[in-house]
């Protein structure tokens, strides 16, 4: 297990270094925006990674609600936590890109921006609920929150397809105009961020398992001391 994490950490380090080089040096400079467009190589893969993690959180929450499986509960918690980290990157890098390109940090009322902020708030609330609730039903309530919270993910993703927004129109998929060299760099960066997400999730999963074991041992100990 320890060897596996070390190997993944090495691969992640190499991938992130290579991805950074590709984004800053190899990717062509965009004609109208210039170098600031390179923020795209961190912003978009972070958003895709966050969406994937929230999807994992949704699937695990549903499994937990049906089967009361502890592993699924831990995986849901881990995916939400790491997903919030990546979603924070999206919400920070977006305005830093917007300032020189749009002239404003944030476009109030823009559906893509607002739904992304709401998504972040939903999963931060989920984590706060899990951290501070002392009820025995916390895992069940959190799974229900996560199941409904996940409804915001497709809304965020498809908002630029269906609504007129300040946010750029899709450059990927149908009607996309992304340069093939930019596509390659984008995918390399996504692969690197997926490795990072995998490493963070794996570490966090092991920590959560250890934490629950400690709590269980402490509860048993206090029961034993109480019965003496």
């Amino acid at each position, binding site marked *: 297990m320890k060897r596996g994490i070390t190997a993944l950490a090495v691969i992640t380090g190499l991938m992130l270094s290579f991805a950074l080089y590709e984004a800053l040096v190899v990717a062509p400079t965009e004609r109208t925006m210039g170098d600031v467009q*390179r923020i795209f190589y961190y912003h978009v893969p972070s958003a895709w990674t966050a969406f994937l993690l929230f999807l994992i959180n949704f699937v695990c929450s549903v499994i937990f609600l049906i089967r009361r499986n502890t592993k699924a509960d831990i995986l849901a918690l881990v995916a939400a936590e790491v997903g919030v980290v990546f979603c924070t990157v999206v919400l920070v890098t977006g305005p830093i890109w917007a300032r020189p390109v749009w002239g404003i940090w944030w476009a109030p009322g823009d559906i893509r921006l607002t739904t992304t902020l709401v998504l972040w708030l939903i999963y931060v609330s989920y984590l706060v609920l899990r951290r501070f609730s002392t009820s025995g039903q916390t895992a069940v309530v959190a799974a229900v929150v996560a199941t409904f919270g996940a409804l915001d993910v497709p809304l965020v993703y498809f908002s630029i397809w269906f609504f007129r927004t300040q946010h750029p129109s899709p450059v990927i998929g149908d009607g996309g105009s992304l340069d093939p060299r930019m596509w390659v760099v984008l995918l390399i960066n996504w692969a690197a961020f997926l490795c990072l997400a995998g490493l*963070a999730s794996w570490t966090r999963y092991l*920590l959560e398992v250890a934490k629950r074991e*400690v709590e269980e041992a402490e509860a048993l100990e206090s029961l034993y001391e109480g019965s003496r």
Partner: protein
Amino acid sequence: MNSIHYLYAAYIATWAIHGAYLVILARRYSRIRRDMERLKNRK
């Protein structure tokens, strides 16, 4: 501010966020290790 500075700011912010999360994970790890040691010593 030059547009290149925004690029650096975005990349530095990204690594600062991931670094902060790494620090949080490391602190949790040392807390759990401490709790485990305490439990072991009590036995």
